[in-house]
């Protein structure tokens, strides 16, 4: 079941916003204190009228402030790099799939929106035969990313996922898999893990000593 993904227009991510507003304390204008009961009548009226006029003045002055609204389709909202948005599957630096189909993301998912089927390639390396995320269920909690031992599944700062049909919200592996390593550029699970697979024996990974021969008696 393959599906052609619609072309996603890649908008350049806007820079992180600087402070656009002056601090709100500029609104505090000395109005000569509040009008209160018990004060003489004339100053009370004077203060009331004055603070009324000051109020109108402040409101009018806001016409020249910068706008808080982000004009969304033309102007993009700044989303931090670790924003929890659309989920992707990343590849290791060699371009191989990172996912080892351990089912941990699927188990961690509180809404059961992740489904996959594990299989192995000719080197004995595990990978998902298919991998499916139902985004109409996904709550973007990021538990799958936390659970993933290989940094394969990652959440990205993209929220533009509207579809006209509910079935279009189901993303297959082809839709999820990206070409790069995502947030962790150098990480390669098989290079640091002590697992023996085709082309790499036990103890040959980074920061790893060869396994000791537990049956040998000599020190």
């Amino acid at each position, binding site marked *: 079941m393959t599906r052609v993904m619609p072309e996603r227009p890649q908008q350049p991510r806007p820079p992180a916003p600087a402070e656009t507003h002056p601090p709100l304390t500029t609104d505090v204008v000395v109005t000569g204190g509040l009008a209160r009961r018990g004060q003489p009548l004339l100053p009370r009226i004077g203060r009331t009228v004055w603070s*009324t006029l000051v*109020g*109108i003045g*402040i*409101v*009018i002055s*806001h*016409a020249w*402030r*910068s*706008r*808080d*609204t982000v*004009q969304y389709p033309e102007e993009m909202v700044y989303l931090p790099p670790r924003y929890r948005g659309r989920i992707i599957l990343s590849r290791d630096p060699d371009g191989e799939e990172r996912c080892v189909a351990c089912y941990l993301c699927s188990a961690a998912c509180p809404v059961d929106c992740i489904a996959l089927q594990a299989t192995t390639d000719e080197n004995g390396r595990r990978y998902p035969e298919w991998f499916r995320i139902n985004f109409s269920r996904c709550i973007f909690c990021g538990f799958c990313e936390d659970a993933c031992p290989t940094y394969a599944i990652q959440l990205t700062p993209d929220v533009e996922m509207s579809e006209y049909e509910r079935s279009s919200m189901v993303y297959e592996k082809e839709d999820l898999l990206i070409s790069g390593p995502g947030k962790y550029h150098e990480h390669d699970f098989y290079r640091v893990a002590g697992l023996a697979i085709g082309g790499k024996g036990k103890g040959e990974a980074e920061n790893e000593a060869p396994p000791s021969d537990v049956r040998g008696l000599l020190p």
Partner: protein
Amino acid sequence: MTVPAGAVVAALPAWVGPLATVLGVLIVVLSLAAGLIWYERRLLALVQDRHGPNRVGPAGLLQVLADTFKILFKEDWVPPFADRSVFVVAPSIVFATALLSFMVVPVAEGIVVADMDVGLLFVLAMSSLAVYSVVLAGWASRSKYSLIGGLRAAAQMVSYEVFMGLSLVGVITLAGSFNLSDIVAGQQRSVYYVFPQFIGFVIFLVAGLAETRRIPFDLVEAESELVAGYHTEYSGMKFGLFLVGEYVAITLVSALIVTLFFGGWLGPWLPDVVWFLLKTFVFITLFIVIRGTFPRVRYDQLMALGWKALLPLSLLNLLITGAIVVARAG
């Protein structure tokens, strides 16, 4: 060969001029009231650091059209528990009275639909009739929110009618006429009546806010407590009539303030009508800015302000004005 404009006007039948005035005033007022919906939303957004409706058409101007179509195509629904005939009639009253009041407002020298000698009384009478609309709408809806809204409307509008009338007596005394054209002419002879009648102007402004049920005095439709007050049960174009009626009323009060206190069409260089519209627009803007500024007053504050502050003040104003006029007449 060019024909002078005066000759063309003289050659037309006698009924063309009045008809053109009626149609002109009607069309301008109605389109202005519709445009105010857009203007108010944009202006409120402006003072609240937002943009407001800016998507439909240039600067969002076609939003008015879109809203009109939306409201026209909505189902014309009368709740089964409502008092049907009264329910249907009520919205048209507020609309009709506001439009009728425009009859006596002179837009420029000689351009007035009905040059009544009791023009100002007519306006006050129409504004009294408008109370019925709100009260009956609240009553006929047979819903608790509507009823409370209607009750508040009755108390509020009847109270503020008193000061509205009293605050204008000073102007009438100065001009010596109820005719709005005469009042403007009187200001041409002396000064704009806002100077001798500043207190009257302020009272009329506040009373106008209360009569149009605008924000510091919108207890009638207080959305935080009464859902939508007297028009809770209204939808579709019947609600639209209330909405447009409110904007016509705002335009009316602004036009009246301009006519009574700011010299109506008087002004240098520009044509009369332009001056009148410009001045009216300033007050419409003021009304909207006031809406953007103030919170809703409490009910007891509303009544206290009216009866304890504005009533004595307007009577005092009347007394002083009368004394000065009598002393001058010697």
